[in-house]
């Protein structure tokens, strides 16, 4: 598995020889630091800096090293009613070096992008890995991966969010707010857009230098209706899903017609009937169901979690031990298929190579209702390869910035649509006494992912196969495998829709991942609903 420095240089040079490089020149040094231009393709100065870190760690005895430069830019434009409330931008840049030694990791980072501080970080990471290896040394091996030489990747986008001025963004949202507050009883609206652009270059001791650009956007709007006597207020939020797309995504979704509908829904919630607790059939729209998938399939299928590595924070998983559940645990019915991938266009965690140099993968977690695989990084492959027969990493290593250590994070996880192209109406028409749920609401699940409770944004009573009146105060509680085994129908490809989150937390120190989940409209039978109204 380990590679000597000589091999590393040879493989990099070889692989790089086959690629066309169009490097930007590093800008001249100004002040205390040299600045590096980080746009893909691979920037020679950045590459040299990273290789110096890899070299420094390998010569201190490391067995594997990854060094990563990241420039993370975020911009936020926010408004309320007819006024701006904030325009802010953050730009943070640095190098993180991770070192593997005898089954333990060490990590150090610096914001000084020059050779000496980076070499110090590499040495410090190596010393930490060595110190940790002395205590309860683990039998950890990294799954092999090819060196890919110099490679590049970028998110799919048409309009760079930074090419739309803050003036235009503010004008766009203020105009939408005006529509929202025109609705009956709507007193307040907050809205805006968060844009993220990450330029990162990774160099590994196995000979990959990957320059990648990720663009993500999260448009938001929360509309509040207050009753005229101020005895009640209701909100409609979580209106548009975040996506790994360009600004064209904001323009396509933040439309006047959509805002009129959301505002009308906020207003209607004031007079909606409060739900009666009991058992109902639930038709879950993908704008809601993605989060249930995230919590009840996404997190329990993290292998580190299943084996106790997250016990002190997020918890463990009911999908454990692996030998007792892989290939045998029935998650849901035969027509339930769940894939994991980092390859879909627009996916929030879609990428070319992960943060330890593994190419993006696509694989099944649940096949015909049976749990068949976990999410993995290189160190985790060995833990289950005897059972799965899979000897490569699924490429789930991710760090949320230059000062963060890469570890296993969730890929995009999707419930596949049915073969028959059932529509939303087809599914609703089969329900006699049910509730249609739309949008992300409250969400909570236990530390082994058995017991969950979800709310939503908009609820419709279904009677005799038709949506009738609006309901509110709906929460449903279930046990994960009971819930998924109550899945009675799934919509076809035409109902498939991708939701997601900008802020999925895991790890200590806590790191944030952005992740997408696609799914069709789905029917779950006989689920416990409670009234969550105060």
């Amino acid at each position, binding site marked *: 598995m380990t590679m000597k420095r000589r091999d590393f240089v040879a493989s990099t040079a070889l692989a790089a020889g086959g690629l066309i490089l169009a490097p930007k020149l590093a800008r001249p040094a*100004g002040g*205390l*630091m040299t*600045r590096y231009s980080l746009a893909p393709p691979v920037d020679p100065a950045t590459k040299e800096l990273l290789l110096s870190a890899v070299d420094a760690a390998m010569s201190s005895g490391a067995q594997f090293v990854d060094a990563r430069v990241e420039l993370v830019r975020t911009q936020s434009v926010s408004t309320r009613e007819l006024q701006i*409330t*904030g*325009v*802010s*931008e*953050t*730009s*943070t840049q*640095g190098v993180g070096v991770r070192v593997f030694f005898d089954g333990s*990791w*060490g990590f*150090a980072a*610096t*914001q*000084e992008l020059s050779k000496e501080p980076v070499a110090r970080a590499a040495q410090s*990471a190596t*010393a*930490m890995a060595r*110190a940790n290896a002395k*205590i*309860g040394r*683990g039998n950890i091996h990294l799954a092999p991966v090819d060196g890919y030489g110099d490679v590049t990747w970028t998110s799919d986008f048409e309009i760079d969010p930074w090419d739309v*001025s*803050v003036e235009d963004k*503010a004008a766009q949202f203020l105009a939408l707010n005006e529509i929202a507050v025109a609705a009956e009883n709507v007193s307040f609206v907050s809205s805006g857009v968060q844009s993220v652009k990450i330029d990162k270059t990774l160099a590994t001791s196995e000979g990959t230098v990957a320059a990648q650009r990720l663009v993500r956007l999260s448009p938001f709007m929360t509309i509040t209706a*207050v009753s005229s*006597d*101020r005895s*009640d*207020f209701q909100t409609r939020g979580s209106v548009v899903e975040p996506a790994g797309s360009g600004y064209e995504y904001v323009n396509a979704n933040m439309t006047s017609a959509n805002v009129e509908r959301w505002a009308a829904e906020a207003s209607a919630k004031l007079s909606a009937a409060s739900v009666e607790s009991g058992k109902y059939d639930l038709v879950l729209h993908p704008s809601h169901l993605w989060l249930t998938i995230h919590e009840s399939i996404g997190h329990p299928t993290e292998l580190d979690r299943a*084996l*106790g*590595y*997250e*016990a*002190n924070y997020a*918890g*463990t998983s*009911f999908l454990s031990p692996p030998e007792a559940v892989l290939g045998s645990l029935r998650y849901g019915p035969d027509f339930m298929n769940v894939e994991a991938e980092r390859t879909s266009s627009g996916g929030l965690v879609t990428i070319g190579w992960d943060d330890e140099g593994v190419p993006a993968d696509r694989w099944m977690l649940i096949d015909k209702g049976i749990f068949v695989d976990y999410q993995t990084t290189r160190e985790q492959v060995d833990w289950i390869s005897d059972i799965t027969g899979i000897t490569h990493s699924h490429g789930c290593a991710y760090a949320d910035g230059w*000062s963060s250590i890469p570890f296993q994070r969730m890929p995009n996880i999707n419930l596949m649509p049915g073969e028959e192209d059932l529509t939303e109406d087809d599914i609703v028409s089969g329900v006699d006494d049910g509730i249609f749920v739309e949008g992300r609401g*409250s969400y*909570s*699940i*236990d*530390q082994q*992912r058995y*017991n969950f*409770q979800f709310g939503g944004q908009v609820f419709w009573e279904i009677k005799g196969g038709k949506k009738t009146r609006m309901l509110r*105060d709906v929460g449903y*509680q279930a*046990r994960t495998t009971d819930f998924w085994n109550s899945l009675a129908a799934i919509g076809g490809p035409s109902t498939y829709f991708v939701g997601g989150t900008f802020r999925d937390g895991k790890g200590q*120190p806590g790191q944030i991942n952005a992740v997408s989940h696609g799914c069709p409209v789905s029917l779950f039978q006989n689920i416990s609903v*409670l009234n*969550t*109204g*105060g």
Partner: protein
Amino acid sequence: MSVGTGDRRGLSADEARELSTRILRSTSADEARVSLTSGWRGNTRYAVNRITTAGEFERVQASITVRFGKRQATITTNRLDADAITEAVASVQAQARLTPEDPEAMPELGPQRYADSAGYHDSTANLGPEARSEIAADGIQTAIEAGGIDVAGFLDVSAGSGSVANNAGLFAYHASTSATYSITARTADGTGSGWSGFGERDWAATDSGSAHAQAVETALRSREPRTLEPGSYPVVMAPEAVSDLVSRLAFSMDARRADEGRSAFSAEGGGTKLGERIVDERVRLWSDPQGLGSAPYTGDGLPIEPMMWVDDGILSNLSYSRFWAKKQGKQPTGGPGSLRMAGTEKSLEDLISETQRGVFVTRLWYIRSTDPRTISYTGLTRDGTFWIEDGQIQYPVNNFRWNDSPLFVLSALEDMSRPFRVRTSREVPAIRVGEFNFTSVSEAV
């Protein structure tokens, strides 16, 4: 740029003043403010009885807010050489000019006086990788000696400074350290789990060995829980659980939302519930930045003094921003951070021994809002839930999902212990309440 040249980690007051001045001089805006954050953070993490990762980094970061009339924008950057500063200032000024006027923009404050708030301790700042791995090793050793236990834990330490400076002559500076530690012990049969943890500014004031012993003991004691039906029960909550509920009450105290009719503290027909009894009369809840070693100022440099939110059960203040205070003719308060809740002289054991029957809750988990009108939440219990009868913990019971509100919980208050430091900047007692609403069983351990 090196992070701190003196004995302490992070920029010194002189260094912060010098860098802030340099940035402020490069702006041509009507008003400008610079907030600096600098220092060091280190951590060590362990799981399945071995150290899994450790990491460290240092940083200096500047947030620059500029204002032309009422047009304003902010940029945050960690590139602080002369060219990068020029570039950042040019960029944020261009953005501010393009931004619509913010009618709520408040002028920068002039020079202020701040109370002392001692928050920096060398005992924490000196917790390097080796010291941290020894602490982790002690936790692992405790598990190995107990036998049949896996522990996972995390030590997170930081040391550094923050400052706020503006071109109206204000300069605020605060140095602090923070140490957060937690350990979870799980039994090999998967039926028992125990947790212990704390936050402190001064590592010397902590006892990680006790935390290790307590987590392991709770894990062993919680094995093979018996089934207890969901329902409303008297509950003794350990301080960690109380902290999670009380902080959510405090963070619902925004005055503007109350005035706007969209808060639990809005009064029907108009106005707010200020001055009304909202919980049991023994409840006192206040912010105490100086007492807990936190920065004695807000993000824009406004000095903050201790602020009572709930006094003898009465809603005595809401949280006013500078803008909202001016509009409503009130004093700005700062936010509800650095929370303290008053307790009694009793120990946690006293609360248990005076309980006829009820459930003991070690900690809460995955708490999410279900209705802001009543500050209602759902969540779960975790890592040590027990049945108490005749003043003694009798046996472990299953975990629960609960649906309840800190307003209801603190209205049903029966007794409190002495306060415990549960977070770097939070101190609350354990409590016993007459009822807490468990809505379903969670089989999770």
